[in-house]
């Protein structure tokens, strides 16, 4: 993999963000709204609930982690959408850029944008609502890593879907995190769910993060095997998502979809 084209994609995103407040604002705006909304909900729940249970790390912490995952995924898809919105696929895919380099460029872009969002959330949740990250101990690092990797996998998969089904399928991408959240047990233990939903949840790496988070807050030690499995799952899903994107690209080149992308069909 050559670094130059990967940096080119990151540089393109930097150019776009530098000149566009509408691209920069969503990095802060939605996560800020979520933190503020859930911050006040947890404050109210703490005032009416039992003093032994602090809702701030349970609910606000979960919102923060889930928003981080969402921002990573949207970091990948938004970078991909830039080529969609500017009808740039022909210029991109007629260049010597490999699919691996293209995906690496999207991922690096997502790293930069999601870290900015994470920093904004950590500062706001800590300063305004007293969320202390020390309650998660050192496990906050693997928690974030698992969510980051799964966000990358889902972002690549969503991009493949849009490449396959055309520009209108972009509207299916935005609600994807909301669609997955009931299965991932963001706010409740997986055991709350019916068996088939638990089975789906166990395939989602974030479910191990939120189970682990709740175990820490309950004073227990999360089993290390759970997080290790989540990491392996997330890595495997990145590989599968990359293979899926490459297969969709091959199909688009073979069928003529790439050359006639705006038609949303090769026939």
């Amino acid at each position: 993999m050559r670094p130059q084209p990967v940096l080119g994609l990151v540089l393109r995103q930097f150019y776009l963000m530098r000149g566009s407040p509408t691209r920069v604002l969503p990095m802060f705006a939605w996560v800020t709204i979520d933190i503020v909304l859930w911050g006040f909900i947890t404050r109210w729940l703490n005032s009416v609930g039992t003093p032994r249970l602090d809702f701030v790390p349970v609910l606000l912490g979960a919102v923060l982690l889930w928003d981080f995952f969402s921002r990573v995924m949207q970091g990948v898809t938004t970078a991909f959408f830039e080529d969609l919105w500017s009808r740039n696929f022909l210029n991109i895919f007629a260049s010597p850029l490999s699919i691996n380099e293209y995906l690496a460029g999207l991922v690096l872009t997502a790293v930069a944008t999601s870290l900015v969002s994470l920093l904004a959330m950590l500062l706001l949740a800590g300063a305004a609502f007293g969320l202390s990250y020390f309650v998660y101990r050192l496990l906050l690092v693997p928690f974030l890593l698992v969510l980051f990797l799964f966000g990358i996998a889902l972002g690549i998969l969503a991009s493949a879907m849009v490449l396959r089904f055309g520009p209108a399928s972009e509207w299916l991408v935005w609600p994807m995190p909301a669609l997955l959240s009931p299965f991932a047990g963001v706010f409740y233990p997986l055991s709350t769910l019916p068996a088939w939903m638990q089975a789906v949840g166990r395939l989602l790496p974030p479910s191990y993060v939120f189970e682990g988070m709740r175990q820490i807050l309950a004073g227990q030690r999360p089993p290390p095997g759970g997080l290790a499995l989540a990491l392996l799952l997330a890595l495997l899903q990145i590989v599968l998502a990359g293979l899926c994107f490459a297969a969709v690209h091959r199909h688009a080149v073979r069928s003529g979809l790439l050359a006639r992308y705006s038609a949303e069909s090769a026939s």
Partner: protein
Amino acid sequence: MPSAPATQTAAAPGPALEVRGLCKRYGAVRAVDGISFGLAPNEIVGLLGPNGAGKTTTINMILGVLQPDAGTIRVDGVDLARQRRRALARTNFAAVYAPLPGNLTVEQNLRFFALLYGVRRPGERIEALLRQFDLERFRRSKCGVLSSGEQTRVCLAKALLNEPRLLLLDEPTASLDPATAQDLRRGIRDMARRDGRAILWTSHNMYEVEEVCDRVLLMSRGRVLLQGDPRVLPRQHGAASLEELFISAAREPLAFQEPQR
């Protein structure tokens, strides 16, 4: 369009482009039906034909964004199917249906594509192209606000970033006024001669084709019907002009069947 100093070494031996038995079907439609042709270094070849003849399908296959059902494409001796990256590093294109992102400035677009093509010393190359295409005053203008003629010049600058051995130009002067179009044709012709670049040029302007192209391939219904010198070919087929020959071939392609080279 002022000339730029030549930066490419003398042309390597062998054709810049070899197309053999290229086929592409869309369902029952044979968009391209077993065409073969080649381009020598320094040669400008016009790819002509009525709408739907298969010109853009052919170009898309040479650009690697459309996979042929059969046939081979070799750019500068490199097989596109087997060594896609190496073949595309030797190729570039400009087409009216593939404008550069309008939300980036001219300079940002050129830098972005220079990195994608792995251009060495991109800053120097970009400055040379901005001068060559008289784009220096637009360097900080977003491409989307430029006139269509200015956008065409930016696309051409992008198409030359990697000093391609093979340049594909799909109706490059379609949106230009006659004076600008003439300047551009002269500039491109000079460049092809000077730098050993092969150019495949599509156009519906037969006057332009006669002025620029060393050879033309006249396509219809996915096949190459005729090929030859655009200044000689009409007489050989009893037509008064290239335009008249084009119209005859488009309306009665069966009358012009010729063994493919």
